[in-house]
């Protein structure tokens, strides 16, 4: 969801202004209103002063007719399949590589924009959507962790046009193990975030996002104490770059996530999670993208009342290849 919304925003507001012109990538000229006019080749009017001339650039600019929906309803359907290496799938403390495995994720997701509302100096767009992900591990010993994850969300995205945008949203997440078909984890996550996008040069844009949220969870009650031990408040700060290399877009990012737990044996626990990621996207065509990604995670944890049983510090890295199918309606 985040990637798609980010790309829509980036395309609309900033990055798209400097993207390559790719005429003819959406729809052929078939509408009757277009065909009603007599077409004249530019060669027949070589000396004209006031039209668009023989090149795309002109004083006025190229005027390409488009077709707009009457309503602000929009739909995005995505499918992603990625295979990657995970050095520490159990997030165990200690060395970087533990129970390393290959992981295969398949995700179906859909997002629906349900209107566009101009409010003062901003445009508000409500979205609803959801996703379903199956996760399979290549190591047999980890097959018990194969799972299906479901996500649903409601989001109000406000765009202020000067690079700033904000989100107010509610997520619902659910994880079930496939072997036992039992619910492992569930949470609801209301959050707000503020984002600022800017250009560094014609090919590079950057975006910073601050997000604050809370997670109301329900998980396996391992100690017979509470199934809400993973309730927490979260604050995250992310900075990402997008570098257009022509056919490939390179996107490094860094995220710092602070989690403060509040329930039962986790009351007082604090986690700092650092994530450094690099992703390269190669568009095979308008709706198919091939990507490589790698990320490094490092979590420092303190304050757990279960520290005697082990701590929650861990390090891991992931790296792999994915294929994404995008459709927009």
């Amino acid at each position: 969801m985040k990637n798609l919304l980010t790309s829509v925003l980036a395309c609309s507001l900033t990055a798209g202004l400097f993207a390559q012109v790719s005429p003819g990538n959406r729809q052929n000229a078939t509408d009757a209103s277009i065909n009603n006019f007599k077409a004249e080749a530019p060669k027949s009017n070589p000396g004209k002063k006031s039209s668009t001339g023989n090149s795309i650039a002109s004083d006025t600019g190229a005027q390409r007719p488009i077709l707009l929906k009457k309503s602000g309803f929009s739909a995005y359907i995505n499918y992603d399949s990625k295979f990657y290496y995970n050095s520490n799938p159990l997030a165990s403390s200690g060395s970087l590589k533990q129970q390393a495995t290959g992981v295969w994720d398949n995700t179906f997701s859909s997002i629906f924009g349900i209107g566009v509302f101009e409010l003062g100096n901003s445009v508000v767009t409500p979205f609803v959507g959801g996703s379903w992900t199956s996760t399979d591990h290549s190591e047999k010993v980890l097959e018990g962790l194969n799972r299906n994850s479901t996500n649903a969300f409601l989001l109000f995205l406000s765009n202020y046009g000067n690079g700033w945008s904000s989100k107010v949203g509610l997520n619902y997440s659910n994880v079930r193990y496939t072997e036992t078909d039992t619910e492992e984890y569930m949470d609801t996550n209301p959050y707000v975030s503020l984002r600022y996008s800017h250009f560094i040069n014609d090919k590079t844009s950057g975006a910073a996002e601050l997000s604050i949220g809370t997670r109301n969870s329900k998980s396996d009650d391992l100690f017979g104490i509470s199934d809400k031990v993973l309730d927490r408040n979260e604050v995250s700060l992310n900075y990402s770059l997008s570098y257009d290399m022509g056919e490939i877009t390179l996107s490094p990012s860094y995220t710092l996530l602070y989690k403060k737990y509040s329930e039962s044996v986790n009351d007082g626990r604090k986690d700092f999670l650092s994530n450094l990621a690099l992703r390269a996207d190669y568009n095979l065509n308008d709706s198919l993208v091939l990507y490589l990604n790698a990320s490094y995670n490092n979590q420092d944890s303190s304050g757990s009342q279960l520290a005697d049983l082990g701590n929650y510090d861990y390090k891991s890295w992931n790296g792999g290849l994915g294929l994404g199918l995008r459709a927009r309606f």
Partner: protein
Amino acid sequence: MIISSIKLILIIAVHFWTAIFLYGFDIMCTYQKGTIELINGNLTGEDAISTISEHSEVTYGQILASGPNSRGEFMFTNENLFRLGTSSVANWKNRNELWLHSGSVLFCLPNRSELSVSSQISSASFTGTGTFIVESTQNGGFKFIPLEAKGILTTPKGGRKEVVGGRMILVLGAPSYFGDAYDIDLLLLLKSSRLLNAYPKHLPTMRNILLSLYVQDIKLKGKYDALIGDATSDNNLQIWKFGEKNNNKL
């Protein structure tokens, strides 16, 4: 008595120079490239023509004419501005009325304004705020291309139309009426328009333009493989089709 007289003279002088500073010019050139000539209709011969440079002042009634590959930006005292495109001839008759003989101009009206635009044949009035391009056409009318706007466009015979960012309207004939309206690709226009990109400073309404672009992107259903050209007559608008087979024509 003498001191009072001196005070009075000083006060009058201060007011006089303040008035000159604030109201001594109608329009000031804030950017100029190439050759832009100013034609004073009250004079004759060579005296009637002067060349504009940055900080040159223009008074209403004088004709602005830009040469090939020349352009300029002009500021009004109320912070509205307009940009004169290449090979364009325009005349501000007064603060609210522009006559465009040929070429193209961009208006940036961050404050609510009333503006009447006329070409060789046609005319229309805009009321509101917005940023828009006016391009003269061969048939004597013009294209009205709003990048972002909140306002109304009125023609004598065509009535009133709400102006929508990215929706180009043709103004035709005399008495003027509205021709067809086309939603055009704002992203492509922003990337390819020299009236937007060939100037050192961003427009003060850039934020609104980007919001307009954002709204258009959300509502986008498809793009035609065609570019709109000139209106050679009231019944003929050039549409240049392109695509894989016709790329060589662009």
